[in-house]
Each structure stands twice: as structure tokens, then as C-alpha cells.
């Protein structure tokens, strides 16, 4: 249909062209509706939208201000998933607490494990902490590895390329555009990664020391060459204990750490108290791109995140 539209519209029927093309475009619009993509997180939604352009219709199941581990599996999400052509999720058990029942209840063959529209983004990244000993006595640890890889644009770039391949497989007519666009997105992400890593390396070793709240920022630490002696939470996912907070306090004092980094969806009370006591700053990372309301790109949100961090570290 698309090809026909093209031939007809570039033909020589000048006076009928506009009207005829409008009709054809309307009908071809129905035949070639944008691919419906549902993602679990706004970062993934932003990446899909940027790679897929007009050929995808993207919605995210969670918001950037929401903890992606604890999304309510609302039945309305079942309806969204039932109509999706492609499910893009973070993987590494980030969504283990809410995605599986939605998948089974939606009865959509495409998004089931192994279906044509089942895309686990974690399969395309270099996973950190995958070989770590995992036992629940240590807290809420994801045995497959740390799932928060999208804080690192180098990993985001790999996901963009893989998404390009997946979208090209599902929209073969746009294959060339999608692959090229994915490469373009990935290229700009790699560039940001390189530029920022160099900028942070310009800071002194003391300035590059931070405390993080949850054990979710290992990818940022690796990317920007930071040093993190410990987390505010003694065990991931378990509220900080007084004894451990005291330890964090003395470490911050002795190592002169001036920055605590945490995500938007974690409580800030303990971090703020610590910051007040040692005159440090709390840098709050967004949980993801402001995709649904502001159509923020993934690269923009990475830039926004590191900017705040750099400002604090370079004080």
C-alpha cells in the first residue's frame, strides 16, 4: 500500500493529486498503523520512540517518579498489553513482582516468553554483578545481575541498536530507516558517554567519591570512574538501620565525601539527615526520562542526571 501511494503521489495527475493522495494516505494509514509498543519503564519508552520515530506508538507502564520494582499490576495494564505488538522490558528480574501476571492475563501470543514481540533489553547489555553471590540474607538482590544498566548510556546505546534490529524485524518495510536511526541514536549516546567520562576524570580522586542510597548506581559509578565506599542501605531493599547509618556517617567524615546520590523513588529522609550532619549534598536522580508528559529523550535525561552530579562533585 505504501509503495502504491508513493508511485501515485509522484505521478503526473497534478489536479487530482492532493485529494487522491489524501484518500490513499488515510487508507494506508489504517493498513500500516504504527507498531504498538508497551514498555515497562519510561527510559525504554523514550529509546523505542526515538529509534522507531513515526512507525511506533509507545506507552510506558510506569512513571519516572515510581519505583520500577513496585508497580501495581493494574488490570488496565492487562488491556494495554493485550493490544501490544511488542513488549519491551528491562529484565534481570526488575519487573518480576508485577509483569508476569500481566503477561499471562493479557493472552497475547506476541508478548509471551519467546513470542515475536517479547524483548528483554538486558540480553543485549554487559551485566554487572552477575557473578555475585546472591542470598536473601543480603537483601533484595537480583541473582541475574544488577538490573539498573540504563543509567549508563553505553548500555543504552547497545539497547538502541538491539531495538533497531527488533523493530526492523517487525516493520520490514522500514528496515533501512530503523537500522540507520538506531545506529544514529546509539552513536550520539556513545559520544555523550565518552565526553562525560572524560569530564568526570578531570575531577580529583577525592571529588569522585560518593555515597549512594540503594545499590542501583553501579553502572554510573563504573562509567564515570567514581568511587563508592558504601550505600546508605546496608542491604538492598531493606530500610537503613541506625547502626549502619552511623557507619556511613563516620565514613563520610573520614573520607570527606560531600555527595549522596539516590533515585527519585527512594525516601530522602536519611540522606538529608546525613547531608546536614556532614555538610554534604543530596543529588536526586530521576528514575527515568519524563517520557509520557514531556517526550524527553533518553539522552536528555542522562545529560540532566550527570549535570546535577557534576555540579555537586565539582563544588
Amino acid at each position, binding site marked *: 500500500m505504501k509503495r502504491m501511494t508513493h508511485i501515485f503521489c509522484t505521478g503526473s495527475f497534478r489536479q487530482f493529486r492532493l485529494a487522491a493522495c489524501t484518500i490513499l494516505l488515510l487508507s494506508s494509514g489504517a493498513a500500516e498503523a504504527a507498531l504498538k509498543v508497551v514498555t515497562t519503564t519510561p527510559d525504554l519508552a523514550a529509546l523505542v520512540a526515538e529509534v522507531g520515530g513515526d512507525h511506533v506508538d509507545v506507552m510506558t507502564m*510506569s*512513571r519516572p*517518579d*515510581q*519505583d520500577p520494582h*513496585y508497580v*501495581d*499490576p*493494574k*488490570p*488496565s495494564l*492487562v*488491556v494495554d498489553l*493485550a493490544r501490544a505488538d511488542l513488549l519491551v522490558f528491562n529484565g534481570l528480574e526488575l519487573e*518480576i*513482582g*508485577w*509483569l*508476569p*501476571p500481566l503477561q*499471562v*492475563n*493479557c*493472552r*497475547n*501470543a*506476541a508478548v*509471551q*516468553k*519467546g*513470542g515475536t514481540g517479547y524483548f528483554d533489553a538486558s540480553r543485549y547489555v554487559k551485566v554487572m554483578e552477575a557473578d555475585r553471590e546472591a542470598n*536473601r540474607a543480603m*537483601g*533484595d538482590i537480583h541473582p541475574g545481575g544488577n538490573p539498573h544498566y540504563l543509567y549508563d548510556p553505553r548500555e543504552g546505546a547497545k539497547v538502541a541498536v538491539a531495538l533497531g534490529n527488533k523493530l526492523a524485524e517487525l516493520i520490514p518495510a522500514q528496515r533501512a530507516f530503523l537500522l540507520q536511526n538506531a545506529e544514529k541514536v546509539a552513536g550520539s549516546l556513545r559520544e555523550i558517554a565518552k565526553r562525560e567520562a572524560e569530564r568526570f576524570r578531570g575531577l580529583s580522586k577525592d571529588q569522585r567519591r560518593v555515597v549512594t542510597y540503594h545499590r542501583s548506581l553501579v553502572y554510573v559509578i563504573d562509567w564515570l570512574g567514581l568511587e563508592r565506599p558504601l550505600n546508605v542501605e546496608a542491604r538492598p*531493599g*531493606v*530500610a537503613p538501620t541506625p547502626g549502619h547509618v552511623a557507619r556511613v556517617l563516620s565514613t563520610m567524615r573520614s573520607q570527606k565525601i560531600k555527595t549522596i546520590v539516590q533515585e*527519585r*523513588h*527512594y*525516601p*530522602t529522609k536519611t540522606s538529608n539527615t546525613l547531608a546536614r550532619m556532614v555538610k554534604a549534598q543530596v543529588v536526586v536522580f530521576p528514575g527515568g526520562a519524563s517520557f509520557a508528559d514531556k517526550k524527553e529523550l533518553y539522552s536528555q535525561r542522562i545529560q540532566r542526571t550527570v549535570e546535577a552530579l557534576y555540579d555537586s562533585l565539582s563544588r
Partner: protein
Amino acid sequence: MQTRPRLFSLLTIKSLDEQYPMIDLQLSFRLGAIFSLGLLLSQTGIASEPVPQDTIPAPTTGAETATPKSADQLANRVKALEEMVELMSSLQSAAPAAPAPVAAAPAARPEASNLDIALILDAAAAWFSQEALQTGAHDPSDTGFHLQQLEMCLGENVDHLFELKANLVFSTFGVEVEEAYGRTLSLPGGFQLKAGQFLTPMGRLNLTHPHTWSFVDQPLVNGTFLGSEGSRGSGVEVSWLSPLPWFADIVLSATEAAGECCARSFMSGDDLGIRTPLDLVYTLGLRQFFELSDDVGLAWGLTTQQGPNSTGNGNRTEIYGTDLYLRWRPAAATSRMALSWTFEGMMRRRQIPGGLRVDLGGYTQLVWNLNPSWEMGARYGYVSGSEGDDLIPEATEDRHRVSGQVTYRPSHFSRLRLQGSRDQPLYRDEPIWVGMLAVEFLVGAHGAHSY
């Protein structure tokens, strides 16, 4: 296609947990025979298709393929390829179940079939001011210590069509299969089929297991109308997700009524056997969900259950119920607080020798999750009573029960609950005061809970 090689893989689960080294399961999936037959047929199909020999691109070296001698040759090759594509797509539609060739299947990888296993232990200490009247089979039922249950949940995709779920309960009386069913993953048209033994879709709480409940014991109406184990049975269930813009799901199940534990308003006593389809218990439900805002959701269910009862030949029971679940959870709240209100009401009509008995029952509860560690809740439950109840002869008057609970969760794999109740069966002289202290521990794959 990617899921198919798993059929031929061998799965070995070394041990559930170091604490339970005895439970060593070896499961092997050998479902290949049927699919191999399908494969054989499809391959025969390729061989017998009359395709001109000269147009089939024979396996050639790379150099030959890369340098076609003329435009004619190129056109021929394209034509041959088009025919192959056509042939392949016809095969796809003719034999969708044919797996990838066995030889091409990758070597068995441990992740090809990850059987999810969880063990959940519920234990409680209880105190009753007088003889207890608990209705649930796993409720603490007298003063003292109780092993409520050791529940084992298992589940995994069987293949690309089905998943299997099982809930086995180990108690001091032995092992009980609470649920064991297969369910389709992706039938077209929004349909889903379930077969095996399962909890019927009667109301809201009935579909869930005790480890998801906010209170230590079962609501009065569930134990009195449905069964001490809830309403369940062997049978089949079909559900349909409607194409409406909001969640609206219709479900119908047909089950064999199985005793006082699980169908007490139906064939609670003598099982009269199944002679006609009318001897089965049918449950019909409509479940809807309305997203009032990002933070507020309302689930509404309408259900009915109908089937024979054991009070006499031809006597039948009907239960009608409605349930509401309103949940406010500010998505952006870092405390992860949530406030949930539940209401379930049921009306039961039973034909008994000499007339028709109508009973009412229900409960309402409000649960406040302050943060991931603390929760508190209040519940009120009611069942009507009158003279001549053949199921509970002593229940000559109404019964009211008010309960309150406080829960502490060190992590999401353990919880400690303190619950107090004032149980007032009006046919007793004094109310029953109840105190319970319950612990729950979970190891293994923690399956996600439904909304």
C-alpha cells in the same frame, strides 16, 4: 520458535534450598514424540511438493552465488527464491506446531525451563477466650501453637501454549493439592482456558491463597458459604477478555463439587456422582477494573455459583455475590504507602427438604500500608443465622466479627502479624475474644501477586 527447543531439554533442579536438601527433584520433559510426528509430516510435505528441479537453487559455493551469468539467470533465481518463500509460508500455516529440527536444537541449557518453586510457611500462636468457632481450614483453631500450612507453589511455562501452576499444601494431616492446573497462554480472541483442579472465580478473596491475605484467618462468609478451604474443584474454566477499552473479563467454570472443605453449600455430604451436566457446579463471573486516576483504581466483580446440593434429589443451591476493591496508592510516594478497601457480599439460596433457605454474608476491610515495613488493618465480617440450618445446626442467630491487625515486614519475604478479634455469634452467651500472633516465611521464587 524460540521456545520450542525447550521441549527436548532435560531439567534438573539440584535442590530447593540448602535447608531442604531432601527435596531433590528430577524432572524430564519428553514431549517430543507428538511434535516429531508433526515435523515428519511437514518434511514429507516439502519432499512431495512438485517444484521444478532446475529452479531450486542448489547448494552452491559463495563465489557461484555472487556472480550470476546473466540477467535471465538472476530473474530465474529470484523466481525460485519467491517460490521457496511461498512454500515456506504455506508450511508455516499448515503445520504451526512443528518444532525446529531436533538436530538444530541447542544443547540443553539450564535456563530453558526454570521451574519456579516457592515454599511458604505460616505458623501462629493463638488464644481464645472460649471454645473457638473458626471457619477456615488453615485458621488457628484453638489456644496454642499452630502450623497453619507449609505451602509449595510451583509454576512454569509448559511450552508455547500452556503454563502449569500447582499449589501443594503440607500440613500436619498430610499433603493436599490445593490447586494444580494448566492454563493457555495465548488463545486468539482474548480467550483463556484452564483445566485441572483450581479455586473457582467466586468472589475476590476465594481466588487467592492465605499468604496473600492481610488477616491471619479466612473471612466468615468464605468459610460458611464456600468452604473451609474456599470454593474449589476439578474441572475446566474459560474466560474471555472483552475488547472494551477498560478491563472487562467474563469467566465461566464448571467443577465437580468436592465435599465440605471446598463446596460446602453444594455436595457437602454424600457425593451423588455426576450423571448429567446439571450435577456440576457452575461459576460465572464478570470482573471489571476502572482506573480512576494514576493513583486510584477500582475493581468490581459480579459472580454467581450454581449447582446441586446433597439435601435431597434435585435440590439446588445458588450463590450470588459482588465484590469491590478500591485502592489508593500514590505512585510517586517514596514511602510506598497504600490504602485498600475491600467489600464482598454474598447471598445464598438453598433448596432443602421443606423449603428454601436464604442466607446473607459478607465482610469489609480497610488495610493501610504505611510503608514497606508496617501495615495495619481492620475488618468486619457477618453471616446471617436462623433456626433449621442443616449445615451449622447451632447457628440459630446472626454472627458478627470485628478484627484488627498490625503487621511488621522485615523484608518482603517475611512478616510478623498481631491480630485481635471480637467474634460474636449471637447464639453464644458471650463473645469470643481472640488473639493471634502469626509468622510467615517465604523462600524461593516469590510469584507476583495479582492486583
